[in-house]
């Protein structure tokens, strides 16, 4: 079986995953350092959002770094899109998209049982975190218009190979984060009377853990593929 092994892609994937895991590790260290988790729900007091934001930016930069190498092979469409990336219109639509997504997540949080008229800040932090984990990387990478295309079309025709790799990994991150936040609610009805049971701490921690899990799954897949290539090479 002739499996073409793309060393560059694998490297990119591994770096990407290690950045994600590193970010989660930093978050956990930070939480451990602060001891008390009750501040996790506040916007100004907690460092989780900036840390995650930096992490996502790093991943995007990583993708740009690897994408630089394939610049000469771009098609017309891809070049067009690249050119429109930093235009004000694209920036604005990207920001708008993220804002809408935050509102949507906030709405879902409230529908799923968050208090309607209280805990604005907590809901905002949670939905911001979910946006950062799921929507933002794609928007940072492709701009507002591009992101929309990626989400709603079956096969967008403008993606470069690096971008596709990155998007694939973003998917794990996003899915893990959302499912983690969803599953985090499990502890909230329990009558253990712990201070970390208050909304939104389980959901925030759940989102982080979920995205870590998603990244671990992604990492395992990459390593497994590499391992298979390695074995087949060895055999031949």
């Amino acid at each position, binding site marked *: 079986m002739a499996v073409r092994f793309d060393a560059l892609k694998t490297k990119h994937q591994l770096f990407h995953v290690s950045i994600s895991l590193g970010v989660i590790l930093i978050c956990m260290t930070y939480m451990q350092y602060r001891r008390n988790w009750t501040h996790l729900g506040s916007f100004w007091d907690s460092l989780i959002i900036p840390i995650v934001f930096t992490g996502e930016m790093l991943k995007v930069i990583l993708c740009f770094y690897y994408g630089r190498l394939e610049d000469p092979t771009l098609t017309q469409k891809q070049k067009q899109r690249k050119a429109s990336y930093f235009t004000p219109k694209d920036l604005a639509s990207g920001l708008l998209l993220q804002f809408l997504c935050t509102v949507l997540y906030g709405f*879902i949080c*409230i*529908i*799923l*049982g968050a208090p*309607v008229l209280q805990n604005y800040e907590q809901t905002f932090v949670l939905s911001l975190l979910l946006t950062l984990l799921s929507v933002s990387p794609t928007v940072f990478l492709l701009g507002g218009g591009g992101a*929309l*295309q990626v*989400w*709603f*079309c*079956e*096969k*967008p*025709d403008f993606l470069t190979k690096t971008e596709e790799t990155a998007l694939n990994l973003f998917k794990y991150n996003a899915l893990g984060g959302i499912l983690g936040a*969803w599953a985090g*609610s*499990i502890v909230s*009805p*329990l*009558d253990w009377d712990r201070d970390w049971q208050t909304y939104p701490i389980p959901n925030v921690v759940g989102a982080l853990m979920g995205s870590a899990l998603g990244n671990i799954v992604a990492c395992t897949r990459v390593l497994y593929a590499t391992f298979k290539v390695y074995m087949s090479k060895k055999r031949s």
Partner: protein
Amino acid sequence: MKFALSYALILAWLAYLISSGVYLFSRGFLLSRVSKTDVNSCRHLSKDPNDEYFLTDDVVDEIFKDVNASSNLCLPQKSKVIILLIDALKYDFGVYKENVTEPLPYENKLDVFRDLIRNEPQHSRLMRFKADPPTTTLQRLKGLTTGSLPTFVDIGSNFASPEINEDNIIDQMVKNGLPIVFMGDSTWTDLYPNRFKRSYSYPSFDIFDLDTIDRKIEKQLPKEIQKDDWQVLIAHFLGVDHCGHKHGPLHEEMSRKLTEMNNVIKNVASQMSDDTTLLVMGDHGMTISGDHGGDSYDEINALLFAYSKQTKFLNGDYGSDTDVMQQIDLVPTLATILGIPIPYSNLGLINFNIVPDVAVPHMTKLQTLILHVWQNAQQIYTYFYNYAVENKRSFNVEQMDRMDTEFILLTHRVKSIYNDAAFKSFIGDLNAHLRQILSTCRELWVKFDATQMSQGLLVTFFAVFLPFVLISNTPAGKLSNIFTIKELGYTYLLNLAAGVFGYRYYRNFSFKTEEHAVIFFTNVISTLILVFHMAQNWYTIAISWSKVKRFANMPTRAILIILMSICYSNSFVVNEGHVLSYLLVCVIILMAYELLQKSIRVDFKTKFKPQQFIKSTAFKLLLACVLAVCLIRFATTFFRCREEQGNCMDFTTNSSAGSFSLKKPSSAKSYILSIVIVVLYTTLSRIYLRSCGNLTGTSVNILMARYGPTVASICTGGHILLSNSSVKNVDRTHIDMMALIVYALLVVQVIVVTVSPLMVYVLPQKNKSTISVSRTDNIIPEIFKKMKSMYQGDDAERHSDIPVVYGLATIYSSVLISFGTFLAMVLVIILEPKSCSGIVVCIAVGAIILSLHAVLRYRTAVNFETCVQPTFTAIVGWFILGHFCFFATSHQTTLSQIDWRAAFVGRTTSIGQSHFISGILVILNTFCGHILFSCMFGLLATETFSIFALFPTLIKTNANRDRKLDCNNTTKTASATYDRSLSEISNECVGFDMTRGELVLFENENIFVGTVFKLAVQLYILQGAKIFCAMLACTIHCRHLMVWKIFAPRFIYESIATFVSMPAIIVGFLLILRIHKGVDGLISKINKNK
């Protein structure tokens, strides 16, 4: 059609299997006490010299030579007794608080107690009167008269009060010649028919009626007190309890009722003769909202007040509690006062605080007391040890030995009591010993029968698991081959044989009862039959199993697992409503996500256009999703709180006055809101039916569907408004009549559906000329096409000779919907006005789930079978919705929060006072969601087709379209594919013509009926799995602290839900069968006319 009947028989059979398992388990888990029919008797030591046991010094010496040998003695009667039982008289009501400027409505109203205690402290006693849960009136009366502990299983039989066969104080009074006069609640005369010399019993049926019964008692009471032909007089007042149920303790009415009671007590106390003891007591308390039934502090603390006019009471030096009296202690105390034997199965102790200090001739006070105490102790000892001998296995041998030794020690000590100090120390030890017996019994009567429990679990497991493997994994078309009517006949015969065998030989297999053996053997046989079928069809099952993808439906499975594991954690059970709403929202979000995934990504192949997106159906459906989740969130405001939930604001109560809350009639706004919602619901369903063309014509069922819901909603609105209005002079019969009309409409609808179900209108033919379709051709598509062109206003077609049928495309679902509307109206009128918006909200959510699922289903369908079989997500969503509706209509899984008012809707004026109807109404109220959504499950299968008949343009959206187009493009030119008709597209995509709506279902009747049957079985499986989890949770947690408070009620509710929803599913299935038969008749009639 033959196979359809066999399906119904299978459903009944499976229902029997599952419910027999549940029944077996509940017999083991909710054990009842074995009631013993032995009766005590005694020798009366009399003051009359002519009697056999005339009291002399010699006799007394004889007795005290050996106190142990002197059992069964009765000392002379001390006084006559008047018992005023005031239902739900809480301890707080009677405590007079000085220095309160603004007393709450229930405070300081009973000042007669204060006055009597202040003036005659030796003649009156005020005590807490501690009830044993369950605190329902019937159970309390049993406890108050037999002196024994009620068991958990007795609860809920409040409506069918059977006669008491156990030895009890009333029978003892009668047997010892003490005439009793009774007045008040007719529960007494149900429990003790023909025991009273005179009885003025009035039905306690109408709980909204605060005054009638009390007035009647007040009229009789003074007359009876004047007469002297009775020794015991019992009066049971119901007004306070009814007031609590209707208004809660904080209403002005409560203060009026209590003042009234105060006057009654005052009059009785002044009128009664000197040798009489007055006992005023409550049988239980009430919670902050005025309800009772549970075991909270408010509910078990009733009040006891005793007053003796002439003789003083014994004082508290004799070991009895002075502040608190257990309710089971009343029986021995009464027996002491009246000089009659203590009932055989009594476990209470004499409380000397309320025994009048009447001297017995030739005896010292000490001797009298010893005699009383020792009679009591011997009676308890006899009962307890006889019970233990008969139920050997249930006792701990060492503990029994220890208690036996202790008692023997006491028998020695009793002989040597000569002074007060010795007596006091003796009675202290004796009481401690007897209380220990009591607590042992208390433990014992909640002891579980492990055999029945484990067998119940196994039976339910097999009855759920085997159908899952067999039926859920067989393609719908092949189901009719598996279950032929002949084989089913054998199945039933075998089961019958096994049942008879079990009934006949149950002793040989060491079963305790016949039912147990019958259930055991029938289930063994049934399991074997199912396994046989499974082995026979293993090939088919294996094939369809191999087609299941490994990680298909993962999120739905996760939701299902969470749903099933709710029962295992007490905090999840407490917050079950919120967990269910969480899961339901998740199901809808999941469906919306799938919609995005399956449709939008397909619609926009390479470029996303927001304009086009906003115009698309998917976007509208997304908006509907948003509406649905908002509705679900809104419905959570109807949730009722339970005790365990901290900081929970109950919508039915307002925590305005301290810890108490007022059950005030809520503002008119909420009633108007619920009426508007109900009217909106009927109007929308009517508009839907009309747009389907099902409301054309003049046959009875169409007229019913056209005007019935309107009439029903008017009546419902009127009932809601009038029954809660502050206008008092509306005749009760008029209000009842509205509810009766709604009931009658449902009955008429049932009859109509059985006689002629179809809601179609065959346009009479104007021109009976030739037929253009040959006999061999399928006639139906032609008819339908004509009908379509009729709608499009083709004049030429109008005069053609092909019969035109209105409403053919929605022929199945229209009848279901119309039936569902009537059912829903009945449920709405039974529900509380505020919670009836909950059920309508649930129906709306159900409609949205249906339409969402319809579009989604078609998009992924590849053939007819996949198109008619609902997705796993939709089934789970439907199931959750049924359970969610339970909470959305303000119910909770606690025993004190059963809404008993439902039993009186439409029956306040003594129409049909049968307990059976009351029970049915309460069950309809409590399990409205389960019933409605189980009956309507057929819509999941049919709605896909009716939606597409209504909006044929949706047909283009199938996911297969593109794949097939690609194939087509290779042969045809691209332009040719564009102007195809919708039916062609549909034919290409799913292999049949979708535009014909539900007629397709008729053409593929084998698959359709098979799928509906499969769907019913799948709902069975879900419900069975849920009840299995509840049972398993009870087994695991049977020593949990909260087992009687949380897990056992949860299990009871779930089991009744199972018993209710399985017949409802069968009803839904039969409904579909009936419609199917009707369609069959219609088509053949049309064919014949040609």
